[in-house]
């Protein structure tokens, strides 16, 4: 699957979409779900929780293993996706549609530090070797 050009990425395999209202939608990448396999459990951060950049804030578990999800930037959690929580397999079906939570960033410019699609593609390729 190709890596969507309109999203930003972290080295820990989260994807981030900058919404028109300035909030950030966060999920895990197709590559991440491919490594983990069939998803069976998603735990989202509480709405209202204030996160530091890189903080462990959510968990995804596949049949095989548990994996932490990290805050891509500093900010406050403003929404979580109940659909993904009740149907974790949606992440396997389409990782870029099954978002996990939304953050209102402390600094609107913080996403500039994230990877673009080309840089993330390189990272994925380097990990494959």
């Amino acid at each position, binding site marked *: 699957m190709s890596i969507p050009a309109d999203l930003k990425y972290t080295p820990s395999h989260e994807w981030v979409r900058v919404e028109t209202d300035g909030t950030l939608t966060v999920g895990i990448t197709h590559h991440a779900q491919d490594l983990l*396999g069939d998803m069976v*459990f998603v735990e989202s951060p509480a709405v209202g929780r204030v996160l530091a950049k890189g903080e462990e804030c959510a*968990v995804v*578990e596949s*049949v*095989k293993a548990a994996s932490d999800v990290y805050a891509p930037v500093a900010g406050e959690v403003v929404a979580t996706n109940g659909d993904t929580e009740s149907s974790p397999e949606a992440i396997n079906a389409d990782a870029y549609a099954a978002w996990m939570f939304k953050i209102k960033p402390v600094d609107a410019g913080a996403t500039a530090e994230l990877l673009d699609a080309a840089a993330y593609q390189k990272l994925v390729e380097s990990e494959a070797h």
Partner: protein
Amino acid sequence: MSTQTALKTTPLNAVHREAGAKMVDFGGWDMPVNYGSQIEEHHAVRTGCGLFDVSHMLPLDVRGENVRAFLRRLVANNVDKLQSAGRALYSCMLNEAGGVIDDLIIYFMDESWFRLVVNAGTAEKDLAWMEKMNAEWGMGLTLTPRRDLAMVAIQGPKAAEVLNNALPGVDLITGNLKPFNAAAMGEMFVARTGYTGEDGFEVMILAKSAPMFWRALSEAGGKPIGLGARDTLRLEAGMNLYGQDMDETQNPLESGLAWTVDMKTERDFVGRKALESSELSKQMVGLVLLDKGVLRGHQKVLTKHGEGEITSGTFSPTMQQSIALARIPMGIAPGEEVEVEIRDKKLRAKVVKYPFVRNGKILVA
């Protein structure tokens, strides 16, 4: 992943890669973990027929006059239970301290030939231990590792149908093979055994014939199954995994394997004295998670009589909830609730008798 040590491969390696398997390093072996969805593979075995490459496990032929006497002393179960040709026995092989060196299947072929199948990760250690005992006890036996054989498990309610369609005439060898029995013809060895809790066969065949055999089984409707589903299937079936549920630091009585230790006769076997003088403080139980989450190995279990530990845990595709095997203090009965520490939370789990699933049916409420 940058260190490139050569992984060992089975005769079916190319077949797995052609089928698009995701390969992993499994204790030094390049093995398929899944061919797409682990959960779909799991259901295929419970409802139809799955094929497993288990060629990493080692068949070991033990031949000689004293083979029965040797095995009587070597393992904790009693090979005298094996009286008709082809009968199989599951047993632990213990050290002097009563710790489990390995668990294995023993097939009685004739009075001068028993075949053992041991785990991949322990094969070398097992062989060294057996050779040492062979010499120490003056048994004069020949131990032959059979790396020239591949082993394919065919498991599920449709296993017999798939095997018969793949290999017309195989019933001449298998006849009405009953569970835990095997038959051999030339180098083809067919056993009605497995590690899934379903009906099925484990077939040993010359390595060079394995790819053709696998393809015939696929064409007859067998679905390839990776190690991922092998683990969820065996855990639902309540079967121990060596290295996880027991090892050299644990004795079989505290590993849910008392039923495999035969102390009814005076038979002297390695580890018996240690077992007789040990006081049981732990028991193996099943857990079903009542809250949301996934039980995993090494999570701490909190009970009214003290702490225990999960040895194997997973999400059960058949039950659609998380289950585990756990070693916990004595005195906690099925039906009672315990807590499991998962990250920063304490989640509720119910103690149950296992197996969880057998022959496609859920056995725990």
